[in-house]
């Protein structure tokens, strides 16, 4: 199966997925948890892939994702609140400084651009640091950004420590799927290009990569900015999903969750990040919710099951994965129709061989 057929079949599958969602939205009640999982899962998938691009494919251990999401979310919110609503949202700041509105697609892209811009500034000093220091420096920057956006002096722009709301949101899960899907496709194209190979070379052996003519500073900056761009878009999508934005929500815990998704899915696998994202969100928002409820079997009160147990189980599972299953679900492989086809072929072959022996 050559590359072109692969592309066409993958595109067809994705289209089929969108149709499926459309159908589900007309069949199931809109409050079904399935839609929460689909929407949030798609958004986190995008951010996880953007983090994987940086950590998994280029080998730059950065923990600043939450900060870039925050930048994207705020940029989107600030520029799309309808002019009439600004007075009530920015009630403590006389309606705020910004008095115009941008269309949603423009604001989404702008969210990414602003995040990438900050990434450029942060990257200049920080990208030459060793991996552990890079992690802490990016974490530190994310915290500084969070503090700045809670600062009341910037209120006329950011609304200080108050919520941003009343900006356009989406209803159908198709919207985040399409946006995230396009972004992830772009990242996949990048990975498969000559630049993607250069990033992987930097991850494998920085010194050898440099000796082969790859300018480390330039390529690391490119990876950093692109990753942050998509984290910003992801943040904007998250804002649309949550319908309110508040800086204090973008704590480092959010970055840790994204990191854990990346690890579960497999560092260096885009499909892994996508799958793991839906699994993670599904478990945390929906399937494992029962762990949080007081449950009775007959009159027997099942011990341990109460609020917060879900997250504990979660954390234990993650530790188990990190310790015993480090490669994650997909390791560093991608989804490949060829491989699935081969799997079934071999399966069939084994069965006929076993049957023959009888």
């Amino acid at each position, binding site marked *: 199966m050559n590359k072109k057929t692969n592309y066409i079949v993958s595109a067809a599958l994705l289209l089929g997925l969108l149709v499926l969602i459309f159908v589900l939205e007309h069949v199931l009640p809109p409050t079904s948890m399935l839609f929460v999982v689909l929407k949030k899962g798609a958004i986190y998938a995008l951010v996880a892939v953007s983090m994987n691009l940086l950590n998994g494919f280029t080998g730059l*251990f950065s923990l600043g994702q939450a900060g870039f999401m925050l930048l994207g979310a705020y940029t989107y919110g600030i520029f799309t609140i309808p002019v009439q609503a600004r007075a009530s949202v920015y009630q403590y700041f006389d309606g705020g400084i910004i008095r115009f509105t941008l269309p949603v697609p423009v604001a989404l892209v702008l969210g990414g651009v602003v995040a990438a811009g900050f990434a450029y500034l942060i990257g200049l000093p920080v990208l030459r640091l060793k991996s552990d220091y890079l992690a802490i420096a990016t974490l*530190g920057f994310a*915290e500084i950004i969070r*503090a700045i956006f809670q600062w009341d002096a910037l209120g006329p722009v950011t609304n200080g420590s108050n919520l941003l709301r009343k900006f356009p949101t989406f209803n159908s899960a198709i919207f985040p799927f399409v946006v995230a899907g396009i972004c992830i496709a772009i990242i996949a194209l990048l990975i498969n290009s000559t630049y993607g190979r250069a990033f992987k070379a930097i991850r494998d052996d920085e010194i050898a990569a440099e000796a082969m003519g790859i300018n480390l500073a330039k390529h690391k900056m490119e990876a950093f900015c692109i990753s942050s761009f998509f984290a910003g878009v992801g943040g904007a999508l998250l804002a649309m999903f949550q319908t309110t934005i508040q800086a204090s929500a973008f704590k480092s815990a959010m970055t840790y969750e994204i*990191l*854990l998704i990346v690890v579960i899915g497999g560092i260096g696998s885009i499909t892994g990040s996508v799958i793991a994202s839906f699994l993670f969100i599904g478990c945390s928002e929906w399937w494992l919710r029962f762990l949080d409820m007081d449950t009775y079997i007959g009159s027997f009160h099942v011990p341990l099951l109460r609020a*917060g147990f879900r997250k*504990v189980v979660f*954390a234990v599972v993650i530790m188990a994965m990190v310790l015993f299953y480090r490669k994650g679900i997909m390791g560093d492989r991608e989804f490949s129709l060829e491989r699935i086809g081969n799997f079934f072929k071999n399966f069939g072959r084994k069965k006929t061989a076993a049957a023959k022996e009888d």
Partner: protein
Amino acid sequence: MEFWNANLPYILAGISVGGQYALIAIGYTMVYGILRLINFAHGDVFMVAGLMMVYLSASLPLTLAIPLMMILTVALGFAIERIAYKPLRSAPRMSIMISAIGMSYLLQNLALYVTGGLNQVYPNIPWISDPITIGTAVTKRVTIITPVLTIVLVFALVMLINHTKIGMAMRAVSKDFETSQLMGIKINSVISATFIIGSFLAAVGSLLYFTNYTGVVPTSGAMPGLKAFVAAVFGGIGSIPGAVVGAFIIGICENIIKGLGWTTFSDAFTFALLIVILIAKPTGLFGEKNIDKV
């Protein structure tokens, strides 16, 4: 004199919290020196120590609760190393850092589960939480005890490192991990000793810290932990005196900033300091340069 009177409470608070950060920072710097690992879970061990004290003191007298808390905290630090870090010693650096983050996540969620998300109130430890007057400021006695106790403990630790066999082993391991093993040093014992000492100091630190800031929540360890780590980096990662100096500087500056009215930025200050030091002198105030061989 006006400035002094107005800011004395903040400066005192700064010295106090600086000492508490120092006790946590030592744990970070020692572990990093030996394992090149940022022990993200260390701040949460500090928080768990606080929670343990809350629960133990509810059913035991303080004279039993305090030592028991220390023993349990040390056991926790030891266990974390054995469970989460030892199996990954030969794995790539990113894996062990992720394990540390995962451990931090687990401890915070366990605490959230056990406390039900409610703010726990630290027990009142007599004598150290008694109010005293210094100049024009009224504060708790713990404010004075902390820097003194910190310096005494640090002094004892430096003595241990420089004049005992286990201390020499620690210094050897932090200089060259593999060669130390080849020379017959029991790596596991050295690493365990490091975590035990670090956890013990964190337990003492928690006792002092939560006597001052009496609310204990699952996220109580995150900020002090991060700040303590910055202090360790600022002072030169691997250097114990450096970590202590860094911690006091951070504690004092942070509180002066609060005194000047910029409370939102008191946390951000610490991170700004981190960035500055990483750019200007990544090896920290007292650190040494490492040259990588190609």
